[in-house]
C-alpha cells in the first residue's frame, strides 16, 4: 500500500464526510419545514429536496467506490487516474449541481422524473446546468468504474472474476468474495450509468430541439428508475464487498472464501437487481403487464441471495469469535442487521397489492433511509473507521465509540420510525406541508427532527474525531 493510495483515500473520506453533513442539514431543514418549525417556503423546500437526494445518492456511491479502490490496491496495482478524474468530476459536478439548484432554483427532485426538469425551474438556464452537472458526474463515475473493471480483468478472465469455477467446485484460481462482489457491483454500476447516459442524451436532444420534439414519458420513466434503483442498490453492494474483506479479520476469523453458494448468490444478484426496478412503475397501468409481474417476482427474489448469504456469514463470524468490538465492527454488524430490516420494508412495498396503498407515502423513504442511513452509510463509516485505525496516529477512545454509536443508532432508528409511522398513516412523501387530511405528518415530522438532530450530532462528532486522528496524514 503506497502513500498516495492512503492520502487519496483520506481525501475522499474527508470530502465525503463534509458533504454528508451538509446533505443532512438540508434534510433536517426539510423535516423542520414539514414540522412547522421553520418557514423556507415551497420553492426552497424543493430546492433542498433535490440537492439533498442527489448529494446523498452521489456521496455514498463514491464512498463505496473509494473503499473498493483502496482494498483493490492491496491486491493489484490500480491506476490512479480513474480515482483522480472521478474526484475532480465529483467536485465539479457538485458545484454545478448546487448552482443549478440554489441559484437557478431548479427543483426537479433527485431522480428528475421526465419532463419535470423542463417545468420545475426558476431560470431558463436551470435545466441545462442540471443536465451538465449530471453529465460531469456520470462521465467521471463511468470512467472510474471501467478502470476498476479493467484492473480486475488484467488478472482474471470474466468467467473467473464471476467465480463460475468456484460455483462448479474448482478451487483455482482463488477469487475472493471481495473481488467477486466488486466485479459484480461494478458491472451493475456500469449498466445503470449507461442507462443514465441514454437518458441524458434524450434530455439534451429535447432541450436542443426547443419544443419541436418530445420524448416518450414511459420510456423515460423506465430509464430513470433503472438508473436510480440500480445505482442505490449497487452502491450498497460496494460497501458489502469491503465488509466481506474486513469483517472476518475483525473477528479474528480466517478470511472468507468464495464457496459455490456465495458465487451463485452474487451472480444471481447481478441479474436480479437489474430487473427489480419495475416495482417503481406498478402504479403506471400503461406499463406492459408482463413487466409488472417480472418486477414483483424479481423484487421478492432480489434480497434473498445477497442478503441471506451475508447475514448468515456475519452471524456465523460473530458466533464464538474473539471479536473485540470496535466502532468499525459495530457499524458493520448492525449495518447488516438494519439493511435486513430495510429489506423487509422494501419487500412489503414491492408487493403490488401493498404498493397500491404505500406507493409515494412515507413508507418509501422509511425503507430506503433504513438501508441507507443505517445500512450503507454504516458500511462506509465502518470502512472509514477501520481506515483511520490503520493510518491514524491514535485509536479512537472507547467512550467516543459509545457516544458516536449510540447517537447514530438512536437518532437513525427514531428518524426512520417517524417515516414508517407516516407510511402506516398514509402520509404522502415529498410535500413541503401537510394537507389537513394527513395532518399526522406534522407531529411525525417534529419527532423526526429530534432524532435527525441526534444523528447529526453523532456525525459531527464522528467527523471531528476522524479528521483529528487522520488529517495530519494528508500533509505528512
Amino acid at each position, binding site marked *: 500500500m503506497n502513500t498516495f493510495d492512503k492520502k487519496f483515500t483520506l481525501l475522499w473520506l474527508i470530502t465525503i464526510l463534509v458533504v454528508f453533513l451538509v446533505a443532512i442539514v438540508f434534510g433536517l431543514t426539510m423535516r423542520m419545514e414539514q414540522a412547522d418549525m421553520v418557514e423556507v417556503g415551497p420553492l426552497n423546500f424543493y430546492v433542498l429536496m433535490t440537492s439533498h437526494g442527489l448529494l446523498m445518492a452521489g456521496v455514498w456511491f463514491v464512498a463505496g467506490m473509494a473503499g473498493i479502490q483502496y482494498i483493490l490496491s492491496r491486491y493489484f496495482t490500480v491506476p490512479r487516474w480513474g480515482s483522480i478524474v472521478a474526484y475532480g468530476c465529483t467536485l465539479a459536478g457538485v458545484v454545478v449541481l448546487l448552482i443549478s439548484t440554489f441559484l437557478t432554483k431548479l427543483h426537479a427532485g433527485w431522480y428528475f422524473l421526465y419532463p419535470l426538469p423542463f417545468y420545475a425551474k426558476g431560470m431558463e438556464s436551470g435545466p441545462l446546468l442540471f443536465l451538465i452537472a449530471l453529465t460531469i458526474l456520470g462521465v467521471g463515475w463511468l470512467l472510474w468504474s471501467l478502470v476498476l473493471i479493467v484492473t480486475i480483468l488484467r488478472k482474471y478472465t470474466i468467467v473467473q472474476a464471476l467465480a463460475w469455477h468456484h460455483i462448479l467446485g474448482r478451487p483455482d484460481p482463488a477469487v475472493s468474495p471481495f473481488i467477486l462482489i466488486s466485479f459484480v457491483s461494478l458491472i451493475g454500476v456500469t449498466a445503470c450509468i449507461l442507462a443514465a447516459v441514454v437518458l441524458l442524451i434524450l434530455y439534451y436532444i429535447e432541450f436542443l430541439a426547443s419544443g419541436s420534439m418530445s420524448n416518450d414519458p414511459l420510456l423515460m420513466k423506465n430509464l430513470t428508475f433503472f438508473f436510480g434503483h440500480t445505482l442505490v442498490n449497487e452502491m450498497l453492494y460496494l460497501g458489502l464487498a469491503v465488509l466481506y474483506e474486513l469483517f472476518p479479520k475483525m473477528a479474528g476469523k480466517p478470511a472468507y472464501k468464495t464457496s459455490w453458494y456465495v458465487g451463485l448468490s452474487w451472480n444471481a444478484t447481478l441479474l436480479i437487481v437489474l430487473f427489480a426496478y419495475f416495482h417503481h412503475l406498478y402504479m403506471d397501468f400503461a406499463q406492459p403487464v408482463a413487466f409488472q409481474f417480472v418486477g414483483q417476482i424479481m423484487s421478492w427474489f432480489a434480497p434473498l441471495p445477497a442478503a441471506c448469504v451475508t447475514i448468515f456469514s456475519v452471524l456465523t463470524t460473530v458466533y464464538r469469535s474473539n471479536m473485540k468490538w470496535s466502532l468499525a465492527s459495530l457499524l458493520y454488524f448492525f449495518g447488516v442487521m438494519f439493511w435486513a430490516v430495510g429489506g423487509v420494508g422494501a419487500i412489503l412495498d414491492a408487493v403490488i397489492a401493498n404498493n397500491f396503498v404505500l406507493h*409515494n407515502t412515507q413508507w418509501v423513504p422509511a425503507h430506503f433511509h433504513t438501508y441507507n442511513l443505517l445500512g450503507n452509510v454504516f458500511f462506509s463509516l465502518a470502512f472509514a473507521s477501520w481506515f483511520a485505525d490503520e493510518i491514524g496516529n491514535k485509536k479512537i477512545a472507547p467512550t467516543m465509540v459509545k457516544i458516536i454509536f449510540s447517537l447514530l443508532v438512536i437518532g437513525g432508528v427514531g428518524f426512520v420510525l417517524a417515516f414508517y409511522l407516516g407510511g402506516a398513516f398514509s402520509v404522502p412523501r415529498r410535500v413541503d406541508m401537510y*394537507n389537513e387530511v394527513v395532518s399526522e405528518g406534522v407531529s411525525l415530522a417534529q419527532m423526526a427532527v429530534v432524532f435527525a438532530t441526534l444523528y447529526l450530532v453523532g456525525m459531527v462528532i464522528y467527523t471531528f474525531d476522524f479528521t483529528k486522528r487522520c488529517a495530519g496524514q494528508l500533509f505528512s
Partner: protein
Amino acid sequence: MSAGAEITLPKNEIVEFNVSSLDVNHGFSLYKDGVLRAQVQAMPGYVNRLRWRFSDSGTYDILCLEYCGVAHAAMAAKIKVE
C-alpha cells in the same frame, strides 16, 4: 378534473377514472378519512384506467401523490359519494 374541483359519484358502482396529465407526472390518489384507499399515476401521453367501487358514502379527498413541482402539496380536490 382540476385541483379544487368537487364532483358527486354513486356508491357501490364501479367508476372508471381515465387518468392522464397535460404537463408532468402526477399521482391521483383517493383518501377516505385520512386513509389512502387507491391511487394511480397520471402520466403525460398515456391514459391509466383505474376502476374503483366506492363502498362507503361520504367525502373522499384526492391528493397528488407524485412530486410535480412547487405546487405539489396544494394539489387537492374532493369527491362526494352518495
